[in-house]
């Protein structure tokens, strides 16, 4: 397997401090390898966006990182912990090494500045010596890369359509040639045609430029199609992680199965669509044991008392996948 580029180790993120803190991300271990698309799926409130904000240290108060490491492996030089960077180092790391495309395509651009200003100010911040002319040339190049004509440079965000704005954001994310691009529900606000077009373009760019992607969405069907590996989050924990095809064919965790059977397959035999009963857990009052057990159709004796650890399952294809479920007790815990 390719070498890792970003390793999240035992990351914990809370909202608030003290006894009343809400644990939004708990003991998450996740590794992103060079050149891969890692999908992160889960219901609203499962902690997937918090994980993304946590590992880039963009959490707004009262969000706090209470523990863990985010180890980044630069292309050259030794790996370092992003959580230990000084403010200055962090600013230099952001966007140059890890860029983010955010949920709200509509609101990610500052309405009072031209597209060109917003594309070039990131160049200016990271390379003050770059000339005005080469900055603007680079911005044009990025727009061309995402299929927007260069004469839109002087447009304001409100003069662009939603799809164009999200393309601009993708172009902006790639402008410094980062190793990692985090996409936090990048196409949620777009219609399905535009969604497919933009994601297809992104995958093509990834093959060309060779960056890695963490793709966060609640739409598991998109992930099955576009990602190499998928991690499923529930109640702030990763409950299953496996190659995309493996998850699609043979998900082990009942929650993953529930997610998979809640959307129809395009090909293959017709099957019954079923939702997951109940609602996502209240992060402030998590059930004891496995947090999914109140909604789980297969819950049995240990589920309501002990938390299952994420580890290699006892199935024949156990290598290369992990699950946190008492139905498949871990042979080898991960992390």
């Amino acid at each position, binding site marked *: 397997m390719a070498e890792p580029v970003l390793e999240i180790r035992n990351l914990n993120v809370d909202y608030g401090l003290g006894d009343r803190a809400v644990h939004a991300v708990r003991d998450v271990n996740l590794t992103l390898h060079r050149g891969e698309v890692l999908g992160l799926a889960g219901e609203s409130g499962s902690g997937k966006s918090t994980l993304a904000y946590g590992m*880039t240290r*963009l959490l*707004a108060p009262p969000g706090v990182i209470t523990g863990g490491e985010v180890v980044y492996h630069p292309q050259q030089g030794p790996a370092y912990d992003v959580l230990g960077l000084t403010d200055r180092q*962090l*600013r*230099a*790391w*952001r*966007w*140059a090494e890890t*860029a*983010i495309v*955010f*949920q*709200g395509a509509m*609101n*990610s*651009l*500052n*309405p*009072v*500045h*031209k597209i060109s200003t917003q594309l070039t*100010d*990131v160049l200016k*911040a*990271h390379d003050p010596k770059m000339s005005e002319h080469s900055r603007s040339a680079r911005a044009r190049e990025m727009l061309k890369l995402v299929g927007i004509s260069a004469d839109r440079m002087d447009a*304001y965000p*409100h003069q662009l359509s939603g799809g164009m704005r999200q393309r601009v*954001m993708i172009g*902006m994310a790639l402008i410094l040639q980062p190793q990692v691009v985090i996409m936090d529900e990048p196409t949620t606000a777009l219609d399905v045609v535009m969604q497919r077009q933009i994601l297809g373009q992104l995958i093509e760019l990834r093959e060309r430029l060779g960056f890695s992607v963490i793709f966060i969405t609640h739409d598991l069907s998109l992930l099955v199609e576009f990602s190499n590996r998928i991690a499923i989050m529930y109640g702030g924990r990763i409950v299953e992680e496996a190659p995309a095809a493996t998850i699609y064919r043979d998900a082990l965790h009942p929650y993953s199965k529930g997610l998979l059977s809640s959307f129809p397959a395009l090909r293959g035999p017709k099957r019954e669509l079923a939702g997951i009963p109940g609602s996502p857990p209240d992060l402030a009052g998590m059930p004891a044991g496995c947090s999914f057990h109140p909604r789980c159709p297969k819950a049995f004796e240990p589920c309501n008392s002990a938390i299952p650890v994420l580890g290699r399952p006892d199935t024949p294809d156990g290598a290369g996948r992990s699950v946190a479920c008492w139905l498949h007790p871990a042979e080898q815990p991960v992390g």
Partner: protein
Amino acid sequence: MKYFLQRIAFYLFTAWAAITLNFFIPRMVPGDPVQSLITKYQGQLSTKSIQSLYVLFGLDKDEGLWSQYIDYWKQLFHGDLGLSFTFFPTPVSTVIGQALPWTLLLVGITTVISFLLGTGLGVLAGWRRGSWVDGLLPVTTFFSSVPYFWLGIIAIYLLAGPDSFFPSSGGFDSGLVPAWDQYFIPSAIKHSLLPALTILISSVSGWILSMRNMMVTVSSEDYITVAHAKGLPERRVAVSYAARNALLPNISGFALALGFIVGGTLLVEIVFSYPGLGYTLLQGLGAKDYPLMQGVFLVITISVLVANLLADIAYLLLDPRTRKEG
């Protein structure tokens, strides 16, 4: 450009309506300035001179309202606002011309300082919530909630007096003649300090509060998170992304405040007997001085309209979303 012309046309219409109202309102007020002038001269006026006073003031009973209105407009275009009753026979334009600079300088400069200071503090308070600037808020809010005349009187009571540095009334020392020389200017500045300070104290909190609230609102916008994620320097995010967007409502507030410089200073000038437009208006009101009142109202109306126009232009420049293409 088309949008701009539309705005101009709108303002011209508003100006016409305001000036017309300005003509009619004093004529609907009961009472008669000539009568009060007769009282003032204690019966020393002959019947003929009374009649000529009526004609002079444009209150000729033989003339219809319509021709009075036409005359009013004709005079207006000649810059002739009539003769003041109070300062008879000084023309109103001269009276206003003497009073206006005092108001403009005192309140104008104070408003600009108050806006700049308040907005600056508001940016700080909104960007770094919980810093010392937040501690300033209750204090300034307290002062702004104190009725202005009371604040002025207390300031005079505590700070001004015969032995004090601050004079309690007037715009300059009574022994001086207004001129641009080394005696008059320091005296004028000294007289303006206390009124300026009280205006500042009572108005700055509005700017701080509105700017802070907008900063807080804008800070949670997605593009601020993006700006942070882009690794931009903190200052640039605060100024070019947060404050730049948060400023917009304050700019229109500022333009409106500029419009009220001329009209909104009655209390200040009365409390400090400051020789500005508000004080002049008060004198005109007491004497049923139509021409003077009309003149002052005209200046107020025009300044509010001009300020609104400025606000529109500023908005066009600052917020691209308000621009219409073509």
